[in-house]
């Protein structure tokens, strides 16, 4: 085995292309490990961690591309690897060859589309601010998917945008639906009278999907990016979006979704809510209920609850906390009975593997009070996964978090990461595997299928030692999504997965199973 590196100076390819390239090249005969990436500090670190470092990487910059490979020199060589690289790249280019013209700059694009009104930006973070500046200078609204944009830049850009009455949705904003058009990671949902402003990607997705399931529709879904409600940014876009929905004749009710904001920011939002003639549902996940209700807004206990309350309010029905299940209690009991019956006494552990950050967060909030759950988004520092003793205990992971997405696509795009965790972290002590399956634009073509494969594999593996396992899932999707909600649900159910109608209910069911297991012991 030898380790060698090819460097291509000033050759730029986007991260998704490079990650998919790495994956393809790894399949080459004789290649044990390989990484293709831009020479960023993060990637160099990754190369070192993978044991692929070599001297050529000392002097490369983040604008250079590298291919670092560990391979059996009797079965392949660097030339073959480079040739395969070029071939794969040509395959990508060839697919693009039949497409429409792609201008190289925003300026040029505006000559082709002079009445453009929205720019969707997903370039590397270090370059994103410049692109957003240019968009704003051209009086265009911005959806900023990129992350790794500095707080200073975010503040400056949002202030510039507010002064011009423009949107800057992001940075790190994954979800928006403007004028009925899903942008980036979003579901195909009905158009309707409910407006949403969300700082949490999958949180927003879950709420919109639930509203659709209940027969409602969305007027506008505005994203703000995850940092918007922090002190430094002051909720600039939440406020801008909130106000726009108040002024929007097509919106009758507004839902706000975010992790709890900084106090000063919450204040500003409450002030606007108090004066709003339209009903406002505020889901500051785990936030201050009293303060919300004090200003006449409707507080929530889960994402599903937010959707339900919005629909109830809109339809003039009673607004009440939804803490139960869609199915009758008797059926729920039956499901729990059946599930628990399959487990052995020493199967006591939770393995929650989430692709959606806010969905993982919701699980932690709903379960973390009662159970000690190790996590990469722990409720307290002692429960950080680094502290997990030998994989013993409950585990809940947000697989979309930075540490899991270095040099790999987000798990919503590529299920590979979760597949690996199914293999590495599910063992004979696992009682329940809890997952989210997120459909919609931006997501993998068949996320349910990937979970089905993983479950099948796990059942086989555990079956060899006479074990079964309970798998609980929720599908965040609609019948209008290309991956199709019904098909996804059926596929999962046919593999024995318990599919609940929402993330909250899936989490609640999981809780029921563990409560029953505790009683049994």
């Amino acid at each position, binding site marked *: 085995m030898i380790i060698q590196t090819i460097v291509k100076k*000033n050759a*730029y390819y*986007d991260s*998704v292309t490079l990650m998919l390239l790495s994956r393809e090249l790894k399949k080459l005969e004789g290649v044990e490990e390989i990484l293709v990436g831009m020479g960023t500090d993060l990637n160099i670190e990754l190369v070192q961690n993978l044991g692929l470092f070599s001297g050529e990487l000392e002097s490369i*910059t*983040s*604008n250079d591309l590298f291919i670092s490979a560990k391979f059996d020199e009797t079965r392949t060589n660097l030339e073959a690897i480079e040739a395969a690289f070029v071939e794969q790249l040509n395959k990508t280019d060839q697919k*693009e060859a039949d*497409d*429409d013209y*792609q*201008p*190289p*700059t*925003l300026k*040029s*694009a*505006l000559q*082709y*589309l002079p*009445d*453009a*009104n*929205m*720019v*969707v*930006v*997903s*370039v*590397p973070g270090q*370059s994103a601010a*410049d*692109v957003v500046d240019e*968009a704003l200078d051209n*009086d*265009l*609204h911005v959806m900023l*998917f*990129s992350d790794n944009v500095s707080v200073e830049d975010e503040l400056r850009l949002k202030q510039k945008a507010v002064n011009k*009455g*423009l*949107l800057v949705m992001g940075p790190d904003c994954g979800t928006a639906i*403007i*004028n009925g*058009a*899903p*942008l*980036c990671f979003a579901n195909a949902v009905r158009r309707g009278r409910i407006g949403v402003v969300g700082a949490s990607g999958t949180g927003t997705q879950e709420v919109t999907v639930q509203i659709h399931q209940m027969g409602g529709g969305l007027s*506008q879904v505005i994203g703000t990016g995850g940092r918007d409600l922090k002190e430094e940014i002051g909720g600039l876009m939440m406020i*801008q*979006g909130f106000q*726009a929905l108040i*002024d*929007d004749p*097509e919106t009758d009710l507004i839902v706000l979704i975010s992790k709890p904001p900084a106090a000063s920011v919450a204040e500003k939002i409450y002030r606007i809510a108090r004066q709003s003639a339209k009903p406002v549902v505020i889901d500051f996940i785990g936030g201050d209920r009293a303060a919300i209700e004090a200003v006449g807004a409707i507080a929530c206990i889960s994402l599903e609850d937010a959707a339900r309350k919005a629909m109830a309010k809109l339809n003039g029905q009673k607004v009440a906390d939804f803490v139960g299940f869609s199915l009758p209690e008797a059926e729920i009991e039956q499901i729990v009975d059946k599930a628990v019956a399959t487990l052995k006494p020493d199967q006591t552990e939770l393995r929650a593997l989430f692709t959606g950050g806010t969905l993982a967060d919701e699980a932690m909030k709903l379960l973390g009070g009662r159970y000690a759950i190790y996590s990469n988004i722990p409720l307290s520092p002692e429960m950080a996964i680094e502290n997990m003793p030998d994989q013993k205990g409950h585990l809940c992971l947000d697989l979309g978090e930075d540490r899991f997405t270095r040099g790999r696509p987000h798990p919503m795009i590529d299920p590979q990461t979760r597949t690996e965790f199914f293999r590495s972290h599910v063992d004979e002590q696992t009682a329940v595997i809890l997952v989210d399956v997120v459909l919609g*634009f*931006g997501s993998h073509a068949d996320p349910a299928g990937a979970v089905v494969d993983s479950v099948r594999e796990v059942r086989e593996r555990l079956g060899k030692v006479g074990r079964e396992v309970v798998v609980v899932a929720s599908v965040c999707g609609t019948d209008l999504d290309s991956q199709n909600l019904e098909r996804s649900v059926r596929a999962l159910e046919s593999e024995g997965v318990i599919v609940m109608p929402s993330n909250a209910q899936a989490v609640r069911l999981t809780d029921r199973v563990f409560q029953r297991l505790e009683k049994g012991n």
Partner: protein
Amino acid sequence: MSVNELFKKDLKVVNIGLKSFYNDLKSQNLTAVHVNWKPKAGGKTRMVSLLDKLKKMN
């Protein structure tokens, strides 16, 4: 145009960055153009600084 004005218009999108987002927009029959973005001047910092000097002449 303001946010509320945007709400009244047909969305016309310039996508800069990941091609998959553009493909999704097209699949919805939206008007969109994809910018095949590359770092300015190939990321060469010296060239970028020269170009910026000329731009700053304003």
